[in-house]
């Protein structure tokens, strides 16, 4: 059963940091920094889906952009298929741009509205000199079929399509170059419930037919659970916990994970009165955060050490990593 390919590390992130300066200019120096990503280490295995969850401003999207080299890092290393993406030659860089792709939340706004659907999907193939002319047309038609659309949409414009189909065009474009790795940044948040199912099924189908690896960024934990094999929980730029999806839901070892997972409304009216952890307070600012655990101010277990020392990410159980000084075990009932 164990597929050797599936056990290979595709993406490896070590101590990744990204600080955005506030103020400052050509002459003056920035006085403070937004610590958007502050020392994140994680691995994504080939063929798996890593779900990145956390509340707005926790740095999920920034990580997605960093691993695609769409934003310069501040510190740390990113290895893709074993190679440091910051040490790439020009040739390697170009190859990396075909192998790693992004699906946006609102694909439609990333298209040129004056382009036909055929041009939008075919553009990456043309730019990389992979296909042109009638071959290009064939490739695009096949891609349209791959995402469940009719090939005769080739000469249509995207504004004529419904929201779900537009997202499918975005997906077709991102798989055009046969990538290995796709960052899906909130790909279904803008879609209605009845349309989401179609896009989610498509993402799952493409993953197995094209052997894709996903980094799936979403604030909707129910969707992340359905799609992801592994989950990484982030809080204000830091990784709190990382484990296989069902292991994470069964054994929460970080108090924030517990609060986050039990805050998700349970889709069962018979369970509305069950015991759950309601987190007090608000997410702190990522601007020049104080030392210690970022979660300490809202954490029931926090002691003196938590406010002084940053907890280290450690492997508490095989494959289950957590950054917390306390020995916490979640007890809330989670659907």
């Amino acid at each position, binding site marked *: 059963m164990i597929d050797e390919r599936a056990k290979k590390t595709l993406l490896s992130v070590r101590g990744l940091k990204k600080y955005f300066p506030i103020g400052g200019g050509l002459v003056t120096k920035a006085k403070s920094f937004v610590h958007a990503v502050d020392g994140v280490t994680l691995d994504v295995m080939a063929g798996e889906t890593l779900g990145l969850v956390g509340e707005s401003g926790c740095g999920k999207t920034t990580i997605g952009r960093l691993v695609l080299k769409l934003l310069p890092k501040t510190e740390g290393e990113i290895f893709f298929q074993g190679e440091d993406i910051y040490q790439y030659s020009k040739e390697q860089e170009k190859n990396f741009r075909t192998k790693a792709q992004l699906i946006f939340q609102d694909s439609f706004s990333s298209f040129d509205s004056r382009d036909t659907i055929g041009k939008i999907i075919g553009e990456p193939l043309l730019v990389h000199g992979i296909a042109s002319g009638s071959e290009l047309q064939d490739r695009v038609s096949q891609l349209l079929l791959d995402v469940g659309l009719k090939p005769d949409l080739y000469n249509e414009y995207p504004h004529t399509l419904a*929201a779900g189909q537009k997202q499918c065009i975005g997906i077709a474009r991102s798989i055009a170059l046969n990538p290995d790795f796709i960052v899906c940044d909130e790909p279904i948040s803008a879609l209605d419930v009845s349309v989401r*199912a179609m896009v989610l099924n498509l993402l799952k189908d493409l993953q197995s037919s094209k052997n894709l690896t996903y980094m799936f960024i979403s604030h909707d934990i129910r969707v992340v659970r359905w799609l992801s094999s592994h989950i990484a929980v982030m809080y204000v730029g830091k990784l709190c916990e990382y484990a296989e999806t069902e292991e994470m839901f069964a054994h929460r070892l970080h108090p924030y994970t517990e609060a986050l997972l039990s*805050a998700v409304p349970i889709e069962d*009216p*018979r*369970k509305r009165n069950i015991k759950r952890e309601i987190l007090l307070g608000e997410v702190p600012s990522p601007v020049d955060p104080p030392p210690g655990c970022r979660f300490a101010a809202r954490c029931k277990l926090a002691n003196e050490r938590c406010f002084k020392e940053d907890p280290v990410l450690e492997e508490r159980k095989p494959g289950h990593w957590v950054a917390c000084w306390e020995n916490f075990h979640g007890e809330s009932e989670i659907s």
Partner: protein
Amino acid sequence: MEDSKQPILSVKNLGTSFFLREGEVKAVDGVSFSLNKGEVLALVGESGSGKTVTALSILRLIAWPPGKIVSGDVNLDGVDVFKLPMKEMRNIRGKGIAMILQEPMSSLNPSQTIGRQIQEAVEINQGLTGEAAKKAAIDMLGVVRIPSPEKRYYNYPHELSGGMKQRIMIAIALACRPKVLIADEPTCSLDVTIQAQILKLMQALRKEIDTTILFITSDLGIVAEMADRVAMMYAGQLIEILDVFTLFESPAHPYTKGIMGSIMAMKEGGRLNIIEGDPPNLLHLPSGCHFHPRCEFCQDICKTQEPAYTDLDGDGKHWVRCHFPIKSKLK
């Protein structure tokens, strides 16, 4: 569509259209429901299904042009709201029906302290003045669990987070002592842990002040946690009304069933069922049943004839607008 209890709010055959250059958009089309005292009715549907327009129509807040209430009656505790002169609507808005809007950021006045804004509602609706009104406003901050309310009274909206601002909106709405509270997706711009706080607050307040709530949402998890009964909307029409337990066990309309089936499948990790196609364009609604082009059980009659409301079990509790309602349970 009546329960045996006397409803505090009843809406009958409500129709609201927007008259655009391209034609008439029937945003709300023949919607009828009633709310009993102390209950929470969830109004559920996708974007553009007419949930918010229904709420705004009840308050007669549809701007002409292009919008117009074209039919219907709204009865609030014996008062025929649509027959009142516009001047008297001020007594209905706030004191009769208060509304919490989706985006607290754009609904608060940025140039006034939040305390002042709550106090205004207290002064107008409870008839208090001066120190008494201020004290009532500070009390309201406490009611919505704002820490150190005496200090927060002097804060401006920009000094508060999204969750705090939504609490202020709730405080303003409750300061009116409304007979009915309409909450229009009150948590949709908030993070999940903050959403949990607001929902918990609303649950607690519901018990403390015995409010009747019309809760507009598209999240069925929130429906499961908050609602007693559920009204499903599709393309401007109410397609099903049922209690929340029945919704999660045996919904009868194919659309409701499709959505619920997808949610159950997601819980179990299986392949999600798909409702083919997209919600219809309200300018070009399909003939007959508006759902027929996407319905897997569609027959000829569905294409030509609009279905009537049917009382499914004959006890007035489960109404569905479908020629062929599904009787089986969800898997």
